[in-house]
């Protein structure tokens, strides 16, 4: 019996003891794992980046689970504390009660995930599926390698640095780069729709403006009112990059409607060329370059002076245009036009007494089929009142009998302008313009010189031809110039000294555009000098100009609210 008891005891001991030992060992193992995790946490905490993130985004009392490498919170898993993953992505499918942080890793939040607090990715991205519930913020943080955290001495105090005393001239001299004219708004980035330009067809748009309401006044149409649909910068079709724009309006003196409609399809997104078609019935003019329509309308409305000549042009066309860079744009197209004369229909103006508007000249009516091309290089700092930069614009038109129209001629214009700031308050501006052609040019396409914006010491449109050269030089100086700051003359006004020289003549119709310049000699050039009183921008000005050609001449006085060029 005793041996049996001993046997049973031994058996009992053999059977039961190992589990007991195991039970004793098991807590030891758990402790080891916990120790490992604690050690890992301690190691992680020694990492300065982890320490920095903890201080920045976690509170001291917050319970945190530190993990290393790629981690996933599974769908049925719920973490009741904050989780910080170092050097790896964190994927969350389940629930996290605290904050979820990944250092040097992305965070993927799947649709089934729910997080009660912030999600923070340090030097990574956060990707969230629709449906995922996040009560806190999604924070993406970029932390550069921080070599030092000390503050430079010159920034450590809000106390201003030593104040330097300097006089007016020095202020302007030293700070010229920050003057309005020179402040360069940075190029827009990744905004292709903002790069669209609608200035290319300036000729066709010359009698409109960019506003929705359209108005003008002249001796042919009288008051013209209309509605304009400008190119819509913000309209984007999801299917195609198609833009519809144009205008329509009514001339109360002609009692006729005018319209223009454009449809433009951007071929390769909005950074590429645009294919356009246009249909129109216009009261058109070749004189926009002499005087803008707005200024001409004011002159016609108030003082019964209309400096543009008009004709009717109706037809359609197809064109391709592209803005190659922000400075350079080009276009090419085919157009079919029908030209007709328009008569003067009104003589009304607010002032003007017994004056009469000039008759609107007859044109050569007929059908014209032509190819037209144009390029513009524009680096000016301002469209209306430039102080610096280039404007180079060339345009050409080809009309051959092969196109079965009523006309057979070519016409080319090259216009080069340079605006040179000499110093603050002083500018030197120059324009060279040349026109030429081939064949029997109709009257409406002749080149005219004389008067406003051309040869300012001569009568309006004194000279005409199928060839033209023109040079305008202006030196603008004002009281902003340090050189003339204390000069009594410039204290009261700004001045422009200008010189114009040019010639228009008729060459043989059979000569090509690069021929027929034999008549252009120094002696034949018409020239004038002048001075203008003006505002700071040189736009509002009173011009006094006098011919320097041989023979008697009158002083020509004109008032303008736009620059000549």
């Amino acid at each position, binding site marked *: 019996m005793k041996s049996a008891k001993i046997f049973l005891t031994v058996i009992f001991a053999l059977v039961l003891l190992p589990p007991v030992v195991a039970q004793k060992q098991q807590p030891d193992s758990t402790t080891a794992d916990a120790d490992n995790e604690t050690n890992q946490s301690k190691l992680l905490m020694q990492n300065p980046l982890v320490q920095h993130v903890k201080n920045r985004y976690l509170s001291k009392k917050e319970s945190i689970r530190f993990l290393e490498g790629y981690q996933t919170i599974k769908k049925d898993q719920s973490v009741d504390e904050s989780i910080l993953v170092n050097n790896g992505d964190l994927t969350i499918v389940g629930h996290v009660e605290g904050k979820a942080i990944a250092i040097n890793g992305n965070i993927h939040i799947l649709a089934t995930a729910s997080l009660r607090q912030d999600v923070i990715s340090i030097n990574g991205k956060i990707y969230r599926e*629709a449906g995922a519930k996040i009560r806190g913020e999604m924070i*993406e943080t970029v932390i550069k390698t*921080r070599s030092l955290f000390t503050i430079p001495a010159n920034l450590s105090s809000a106390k*201003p640095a030593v104040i330097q005393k300097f006089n007016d001239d020095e202020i302007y001299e030293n*700070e010229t780069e*920050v003057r*309005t004219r020179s402040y360069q708004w940075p190029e827009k980035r990744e905004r292709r729709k903002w790069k669209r330009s609608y200035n290319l067809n300036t000729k066709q748009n010359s009698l409109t403006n960019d506003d929705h309401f359209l108005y003008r006044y002249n001796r042919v149409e009288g008051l013209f009112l209309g509605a304009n649909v400008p190119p819509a910068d913000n309209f*984007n079709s999801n299917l195609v990059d198609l833009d519809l724009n144009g205008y329509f309006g009514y001339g109360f003196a002609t009692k006729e409607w005018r319209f223009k409609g454009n449809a433009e399809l951007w071929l390769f997104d909005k950074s590429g060329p645009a294919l356009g078609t246009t249909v129109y019935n216009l009261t058109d003019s070749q004189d926009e370059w002499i005087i803008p329509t707005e200024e001409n309308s004011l002159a016609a409305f108030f003082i019964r002076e209309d400096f543009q000549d008009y004709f009717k042009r109706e037809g359609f066309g197809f064109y391709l245009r592209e803005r190659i860079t922000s400075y350079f744009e080009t276009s090419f197209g085919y157009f079919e036009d029908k030209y007709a004369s328009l008569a003067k229909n009104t003589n009304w103006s607010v002032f003007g007494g017994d004056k009469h508007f000039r008759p609107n000249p007859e044109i050569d009516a007929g059908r014209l089929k032509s190819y037209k091309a144009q390029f513009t290089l524009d680096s000016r700092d301002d469209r209306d009142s430039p102080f610096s930069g280039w404007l180079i614009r060339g345009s050409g038109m080809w009309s051959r009998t092969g196109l079965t129209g009523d006309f057979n001629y070519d016409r080319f214009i090259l216009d080069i302008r340079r605006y040179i700031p000499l110093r603050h308050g002083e500018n030197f501006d120059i324009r060279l313009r040349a026109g030429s052609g081939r064949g029997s040019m109709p009257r409406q396409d002749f080149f005219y010189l004389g008067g406003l914006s051309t040869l300012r010491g001569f009568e309006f449109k004194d000279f005409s031809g199928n060839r033209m050269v023109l040079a305008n030089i202006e030196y603008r100086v004002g009281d902003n110039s340090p050189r003339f700051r204390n000069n009594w003359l410039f204290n009261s006004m700004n001045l422009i000294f200008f010189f114009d020289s040019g010639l228009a003549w008729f060459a043989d119709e059979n000569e090509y555009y690069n021929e027929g310049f034999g008549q252009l000699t120094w002696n034949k050039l018409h020239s004038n000098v002048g001075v203008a009183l003006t505002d700071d921008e040189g736009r509002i000005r009173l011009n006094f100009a006098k011919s320097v050609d041989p023979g008697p001449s009158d002083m020509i006085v004109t008032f303008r609210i736009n620059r000549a060029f």
Partner: protein
Amino acid sequence: MKHKILLTIVLLCMGSALPAQSDIVRKRHNYEFSPDDRLVFELEIDAAEVKIEPNPHEDELSVFLKFTDESFDYRIDYDQQDSRISLIFDKERWMEEHDGRLRAEIEVLLPAFVRLDFDCRIKAGDVDMQLGGLSLTRFALKTWAGDVRISFDEPNRISMRSLVLNTKVGETRLRKLGNARFHHAEINNGIGQLEIDFSGLQNDATADIDLDIGATDIFIPEDVGVKLSVHKFLFLSQVDIPSSLRKRGKYYVSDNYRQDDKSVILKVKPGIGDLRITYH
């Protein structure tokens, strides 16, 4: 039972009549810098309420965006090599009706210790900026529509090379602009009231102020020397200049101009509207 069925039908009808709720996205981007870093920060915003102020974490730039997911999109780029951050916040589908459900708020917290070149363009939305105590080297703001409030409650930590403000439509209020420590300021307001307070000026400075339509109020503390020129627009500008500024040639000059260590040269174009200058 009938009541329950009726109530259920009513609730279902009400539920279907409610507009679909858009997702509101809340996203924050933080960028930490060393204190001696330089940064170019560009904001291009189509439409949003914008609030900008210094970050309590003085070496961190923080951008917080809260917007209706379906109607807005944004892109934020950080070019570490050029040290340039650009945020483009787009309003999509402008033509659609939204019944006032749209929401777009942007909060930017700027780092005080980083030399900052800050360029901001906002098409529509109110702008509220508190820029005191920062290290701005340049600051340019262009807005198309919306009220603008800018305040420099504390001096800029460094001299600002240029300050360019161009607002098209809306009221513009600039408080304690002298604290910006600018050398030259260009302020252009299209349509709307313009208020400029030059308090805090500690150095010589020049400012060109141009308003097209609206009233202009300019406050200059009397300890600052003033040389003022006013370019009126024909007879449409009404100018009110204090008697303590004496007319010398085409300028109005204070007695302490050039005697003190801080003077401002102002060139004002009031456009169509009143110009009131307070100097005391």
